[in-house]
C-alpha cells in the first residue's frame, strides 16, 4: 500500500501571465495532480514527476518568418516500486481514470521485471537551495514581440544585401517531483533564445545567446555580429589542411568540451566507457584547466535537485589539469561507498548520472589578445556535426561553420573554406595557450555551459570542404 505522508509545500510561487493558449497549470494544480496520483497508486512506494511547459518559437529564413509555433504540454510520469522492482509510465491525460490507469500500469510493468539489487528506498523530504530563474518578462513575451524583433533583423540584413535566418524563442516550464515518502520538489524557469545566421553569396556569420530574462537577449547586437562575420569572410580562400593554432570562440569550445560531460559519470567509469577510466587523479590536461559542475552558478540554468529529488552539490571535476572527482547518483554512490552528489537521472535508467552544469574557471585574455599574439592560426566561430571517433582518446570529428578566418601576423586576414577536424579533446585541453573569461555560451551540439574562448596550439584540421 501507498504510504502517503504530508508533503512539504512551497508557501508561495511567482505566477506569470501566459499569453495565447489556455491558462497554464498552476503550481497548485501540479501539486494537486501529484497528490491524486499518490493517492491512486497501490504500489509499495510511488514517485511522480510532472512537467508543464509553454513554449513558442518564431523561425525566420530568407529575411521572412516562415515558421511560427507555440505549444502547451503536460507530462505526468509515475514510478512504481513493488517488491524490489521498479518501472515508469508517463501520460499527458489528467482525468482520474487516466491517472489511476497510469499508476496501475507502472505497477504491472514493475511486477514483470526481475528484482533490482541496486534499487534504494525512495528519499524522504529534502531541503533545497533556492534558485531564482523565472522572469515575468520572458513568460509574457508575445508572438508580436518576437515578430517585431525578427522584422528588425531581417530589415537590417536586407539593407546590407544579406540574408538572415534564425530563431527567436521564449517560454516557461514548471516541474514538480513528489513521492510517497514525503519528498516534494518544485522548480520553475523561463528561457528566451535568439540565434541568427547571416548569409552572403559565398560566406556566412553566426551568433546565438540565451537567458532566463528575454531582456538580456539582444537580437540586434547578435545579428550585427553575424553580419560583420559574413562580410569579413567573403570570398574565402582555401588553406591546406594540417595542424594550426586555433582560436576557438566560446560556442566552439562549448561544443567540443560538451562531449566530455558523461565521462565524469561514476556509472560510465564503472561501465568502462568513460575516457577517465584509469585516469582519475592523473594529470591529463594543462595546468590552466579547472572545471566544476555548479548548478548554482549565476550564469547557469536548471533545477537544484536531481531525478530522485536529491539536492545537487557543487563538484570540482578537474583541478589544474587533474580529474579529481566524478558525480554519483545514489545507486552509483552506494556501489562505490561514497556520498551521492545529486546528479542522478530519473529512474530507471542505464546511464546513472551526469554533470549537466559545467563551469570552466576561465582566464583573463580577450579574443583580441589571442588574435594579436598569433602569427598564423585559424579563428573559429562555431563547429558543426561533431561526432566521437575514438571514445578513449576522445578524438572528435566535425566541421567549422559560419565564420572561419585565417589569422596572420596578429590580424584577422579574411575568410577561409571550412575545415574538417579530427582532434582529441584531451590533447586539446593540454595545449591551451590562452583562456578568455568564462561566459554562458550556447552552441548546437552540447547543452549550454559556462566556458571561455581558448587559444589552442596544434589543432588538427584533417581535410577541407568546398565552401
Amino acid at each position, binding site marked *: 500500500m501507498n504510504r502517503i505522508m504530508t508533503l512539504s509545500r512551497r508557501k508561495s510561487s511567482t505566477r506569470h501571465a501566459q499569453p495565447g493558449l489556455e491558462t497554464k497549470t498552476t503550481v497548485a494544480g501540479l501539486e494537486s495532480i501529484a497528490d491524486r496520483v499518490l493517492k491512486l497508486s497501490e504500489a509499495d512506494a510511488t514517485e511522480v514527476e510532472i512537467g508543464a511547459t509553454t513554449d513558442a518559437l518564431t523561425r525566420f529564413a530568407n529575411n521572412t518568418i516562415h515558421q511560427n509555433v507555440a505549444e502547451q*504540454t503536460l507530462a505526468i510520469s509515475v514510478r512504481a516500486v513493488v517488491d524490489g522492482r521498479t518501472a515508469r509510465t508517463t501520460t499527458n491525460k489528467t482525468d482520474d481514470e487516466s491517472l489511476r490507469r497510469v499508476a496501475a500500469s507502472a505497477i504491472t510493468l514493475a511486477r514483470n521485471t526481475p528484482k533490482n539489487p541496486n534499487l534504494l528506498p525512495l528519499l524522504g523530504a529534502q531541503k533545497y537551495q533556492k534558485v531564482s530563474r523565472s522572469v515575468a518578462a520572458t513568460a509574457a513575451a508575445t508572438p508580436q514581440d518576437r515578430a517585431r524583433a525578427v522584422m528588425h533583423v531581417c530589415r537590417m540584413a536586407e539593407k546590407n544585401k544579406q540574408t538572415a535566418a534564425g530563431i527567436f524563442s521564449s517560454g516557461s516550464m514548471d516541474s514538480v517531483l513528489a513521492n510517497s515518502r514525503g519528498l516534494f520538489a518544485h522548480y520553475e524557469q523561463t528561457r528566451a533564445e535568439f540565434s541568427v545566421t547571416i548569409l552572403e553569396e559565398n560566406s556566412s556569420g553566426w551568433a546565438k545567446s540565451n537567458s532566463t530574462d528575454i531582456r538580456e537577449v539582444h537580437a540586434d547586437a547578435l545579428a550585427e555580429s553575424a553580419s560583420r562575420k559574413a562580410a569579413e569572410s567573403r570570398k574565402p580562400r582555401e588553406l591546406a589542411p594540417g595542424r594550426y593554432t586555433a582560436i576557438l570562440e566560446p560556442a566552439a569550445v562549448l561544443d567540443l568540451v560538451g562531449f566530455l560531460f558523461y565521462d565524469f559519470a561514476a556509472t560510465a567509469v564503472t561501465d568502462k566507457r568513460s575516457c577517465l577510466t584509469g585516469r582519475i587523479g592523473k594529470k591529463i590536461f594543462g595546468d590552466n584547466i579547472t572545471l566544476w559542475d555548479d548548478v548554482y552558478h549565476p550564469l547557469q540554468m536548471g533545477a537544484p535537485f536531481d531525478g530522485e529529488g536529491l539536492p545537487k552539490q557543487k563538484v570540482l571535476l578537474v583541478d589544474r589539469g587533474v580529474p579529481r572527482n566524478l558525480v554519483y547518483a545514489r545507486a552509483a554512490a552506494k556501489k562505490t561507498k561514497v556520498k551521492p552528489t545529486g546528479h542522478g537521472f530519473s529512474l530507471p535508467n542505464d546511464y546513472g548520472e551526469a554533470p549537466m552544469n559545467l563551469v570552466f574557471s576561465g582566464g583573463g585574455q580577450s579574443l583580441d589578445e589571442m588574435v594579436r599574439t598569433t602569427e598564423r592560426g585559424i579563428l573559429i566561430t562555431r563547429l558543426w556535426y561533431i561526432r566521437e571517433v575514438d571514445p578513449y582518446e576522445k578524438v572528435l570529428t566535425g566541421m567549422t561553420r559560419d565564420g572561419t578566418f585565417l589569422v596572420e601576423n596578429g590580424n584577422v586576414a579574411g575568410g577561409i573554406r571550412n575545415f574538417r577536424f579530427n582532434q582529441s579533446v584531451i590533447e586539446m585541453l593540454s595545449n591551451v595557450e590562452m583562456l578568455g573569461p568564462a561566459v554562458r555560451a550556447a552552441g548546437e551540439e552540447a547543452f549550454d555551459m559556462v566556458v571561455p574562448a581558448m587559444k589552442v596550439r596544434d589543432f588538427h584540421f584533417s581535410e577541407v570542404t568546398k565552401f
Partner: protein
Amino acid sequence: MMQDWANWGIETAKRRGATYADARVMDIRQREISTKNGEVGTLLETESLGIGIRVIASGAWGFASTDRLTREGVQACAAEAVNIAKASALAKRANASLAPEEAYLDTWQNPFLKDPFRVPVERQIDLLLAADKEMRRVKGVTLAEGSMSLRRIEQLFVSSIGSSIHQIKMQSGAGIVATAFKGSEIQKRSFPNSFGGQHALQGYELIESLDLVSHAPRIGEEAVALHSAAQCPEGTRTILLGSSQLGLQIHESIGHPIELDRVLGMEANFAGMSFLTIDKLRKLKYGSDMVNVVADARLEHGLGLGTFAYDDEGVPAQCTPIITNGLFTGYLTNRETAAAIGEKRSNGTMRTESWNRLPIIRMTNISINPGKWKFDDLIADTDDAILMETNRSWSIDDRRYHFQFSTEIGWEIKGGKKTRMVKNPSYSGITTEFWNSCDAICSRDHWTLWGTPNCGKGQPTQTMGTGHGASPARFHNIKVGAAFAKS
C-alpha cells in the same frame, strides 16, 4: 472524439480569419526497454495525446498545439495559431501559397502480425537478458547492452480543403551491443545495426526475426578480437560498404541534400543548406550510371520507417526518382516548396514527430535500387580493398559536400578473398565524387530496408524515423583512414 477535436480546431481557425487550416490529432504510445550487464536499465511506457493546428492567415503561417482537449482548449489553440500567423505577417515578404492537392477521406493501417504491446513485457525483457548473457560469456566483453523500442501512432488529419485521413502506424525495433575495454582502447560491435539496431513499420515479428540471441556470441567475440586486429591502413583505396553503412551514407549524402526546404534556405540557421541548388536539377551527374535512388513512401517499397499512406499535410504516398542512371532527378517537396519551384504537386514528404510539432520536409524511404552482383562474386572480383561494416561515427558539412564515416569493423580483401580483420576503419570524401566512383551494387538478395529512428531536424528539433534500402556496394579511389591519422 478525434474528429470532433479536429473539427473544432478547423472551424475556429476559419472563423478567426484563416484562409487555410489543418489539424493533426495524434495519440502515441511507446514502450522502451533496455538492459545492461544482466540488469534491466530503462523500463518505460509513455502515452501522449494532443492536437496541432496549422493555419495560413493574413498570408502567413501560424501553428499552435495543446493537450487540453476540451472544446475551450482546442478553440484557444486554434485562435492562438491564427494570432501567431498574423504576427508572422509583420515580417512577410510574400503570401504563403500551396501547390494544389485533392481532398481525401481515408483510413489506413500498416500490416503487422503481432501487436508488440500484447507481447508480455517479461518475455521482451527475457529476450534482451538472454542476448546479454551470451555476450558476457565472451571473455573480454566489459559491457553488454540491449534495447527494444515499440511505438504505436494513431493520427487523424483534417484540413479545411475537406480531407479527413485516419492512419495507424505500428513500429518495432531492437538491437544489441558488446563493448570491450582494454589498455587504452574501447572497441564495440553491434547487431543488427548500431545506434539501436533495426527498426521497421512492423509488429513483434520483426524482433523475433532478428534472432538476437544467436548473434550475441559472434558480436562479443568480434568486439574482443578488434583489440588484436591491425589498424586499418591509410591511403586512397577501393572500399566495399556493408548494406547498413551504405544506408547511412545514403541518408547523409543523398537524403538530406535533396530536402527542398534546405535547398531554399529554410534550414540555414541549424540543419544547414544543400549543394543541390535548383540549377542542378536534371543536370547534375550525382553518381555513376548504375546509381538509381528513389524516395518511396508506398507500402510496396517495404515496411520502412518512411512508409505511410498520406503525409502529414494530406498528400498521398508516392515514389519519386531521386537519381536516375546517375542523373539528379528529384527533390523531397511539400505543398509550399513544390509551388515555389513550379512543380505541379508535392511529392508528399511532410512529416511530424508528434502532435506538438509542425510538419516539415523529412525523408521517407530513400533507397538505392539493387544491382546484379552476388556478394561472394563481388569479393572474388576485388583485388585489393577494405570491407567496412556497421557505422561507428558519421559527420558531414552543413551543405552536404564533405563527409567522414567510421565503422565498427573492417576486413581486408586481397586477391578476391576476405582476409584479416582491421580495426578503426574510416573513409571520407566529397559527395558527388564518392557516388560517381561506385562500380558495383549487390542484388536484391542482399538488399535490406534499414530503419534510422533518430534523424534530427527543425527548430524546435524533431526526431523522425526514416527508411534506407541498400545492398553492399563497391567504390574506388576513396580516402581511407583520415579519422585516425596523426597529421
